[in-house]
């Protein structure tokens, strides 16, 4: 993938020496930097003294166990958002559920599979980077005169109209797929899927700003302007389809379920900005362009095409793409029909 590798600072909390050595080795092999401690109290002390991108946390430990560490983290504003991946050999779904409820991002059974470890670290780390990026933008907004003005009106923390392309992606027939698989495998499948999709989107300058179940929304052109955003979005969309196909080949070989995705892309002005309350803000894009992209994505199955784009995206595309005009289509919830094109 074109995106540059970023090494994460990872805190490893594990009381068993063999497990500690092994996990540290596996994480270092992925190119990340590890600091190891062997109990919960040391973990908290270390976290308070230096920044980390991620924590790998064992549950069964003397003194303060992993559950207690998670509980304590949730009470400390500075540490609340640190992504935590629990690694444990504890049996039973109840323990997994408890960790997730206490705020853990993910749960890996020991012995930890190196491929899963890589995928989950990458996904957690990417999410944290996006969050940090958003927070940095909020901070910038907050110091500007604009933000002060907006703060009086409460909600829209600096909403403005920007030209952008919006991409929606969804796994086709995911509900049927999810019902046929054990829950751990569904989560595993989703994690791998997200890792691949985040990669494709990020490497073309897009930002994933929403994940809903098996669907996601990405913006090209906001929060930061992006030259040729329509082209970037379409390239990302094509790469996502290609990666899903590649993934399915691997899955077929391993006897696992295959996935097929649909992608809808629309371009135009979007209302972008921070919305939320004083305590919690999120970057949002709304408007007709966003709705159109979502509707296009919903049409991919019926149209039997993997990537559908609107007329505005088509106009900005230029040469070098294989575009097929599908004519005017009546999109759900729209009174006017929209010119739809397929890209392959």
């Amino acid at each position, binding site marked *: 993938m074109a995106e540059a590798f970023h090494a994460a600072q990872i805190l490893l909390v594990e*009381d*068993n*020496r*063999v*497990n500690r*050595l*092994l996990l540290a*080795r*596996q994480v270092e*092999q992925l190119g990340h930097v590890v600091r190891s401690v062997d109990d919960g109290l040391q973990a908290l002390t270390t976290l308070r003294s230096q920044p980390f991108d991620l924590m790998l946390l064992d549950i*069964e*430990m*003397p003194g303060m166990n992993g559950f207690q560490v998670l509980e304590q983290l949730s009470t400390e504003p500075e540490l609340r958002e640190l992504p935590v991946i629990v690694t444990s*050999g*504890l*049996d039973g779904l109840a323990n997994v559920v408890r960790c997730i409820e206490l705020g853990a991002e993910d749960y890996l059974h*020991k*012995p930890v599979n*190196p491929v899963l470890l890589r995928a989950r670290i990458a996904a957690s780390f990417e999410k944290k980077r996006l969050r940090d990026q958003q927070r940095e933008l909020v901070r910038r907004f907050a110091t500007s005169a604009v933000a002060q003005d907006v703060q009086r009106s409460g909600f829209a923390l600096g909403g403005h109209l920007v030209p952008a392309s919006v991409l929606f992606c969804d796994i086709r027939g995911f509900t049927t797929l999810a019902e046929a698989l054990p829950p751990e495998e569904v989560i595993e499948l989703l994690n791998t899927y997200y890792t691949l999709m985040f990669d494709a989107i990020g490497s073309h300058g897009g930002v994933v700003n929403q994940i809903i179940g098996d669907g996601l929304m990405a913006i090209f052109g906001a929060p930061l302007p992006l030259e040729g955003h329509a082209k970037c979005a379409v390239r990302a969309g094509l790469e996502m389809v290609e990666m899903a196909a590649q993934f399915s080949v691997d899955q077929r070989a391993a006897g696992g379920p295959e996935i097929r995705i649909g992608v809808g892309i629309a371009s135009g002005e979007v209302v972008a900005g921070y919305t939320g309350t004083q305590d919690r803000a999120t970057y949002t894009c709304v408007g007709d362009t966003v709705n159109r992209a979502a509707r296009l994505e919903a049409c991919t199955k019926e149209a039997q095409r993997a990537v559908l784009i609107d007329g505005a995206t088509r106009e900005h595309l230029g040469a070098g793409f294989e575009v097929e005009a599908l004519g005017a289509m009546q999109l759900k919830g729209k009174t006017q029909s929209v010119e739809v094109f397929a890209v392959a």
Partner: protein
Amino acid sequence: MSAASSPIIDTQVFGELQNNTGADFVIELVDTFLDEAPQLLAQMRSARAAADADSFRRAAHSLKSNGNTFGALAFAAQARSLELAVLAQVEEGALAALEEAFGQAAARLRELCHG
């Protein structure tokens, strides 16, 4: 769960560990295990004597986890059943059996590492 019907060390699991982390590293890892496991086994005995269920369970849990890492599956299965057991009902014989399984696993691991 008979130890006789399955190999002491599942060489596929062990081989994968070597492939993923390097043979030299695995030697270091095995040495750590051989160093630490007897302490954990002793912890289980003293925890049983002191009726300290938490300490007993944690030690059994660690041994299970390490056993699975090296492919000592029969040993790990025995440790797991003790991890899940009610301490008051654990008989001395079960600990002796676990120690014996460890002895066999340790010998086989030494062979695999040092030929």
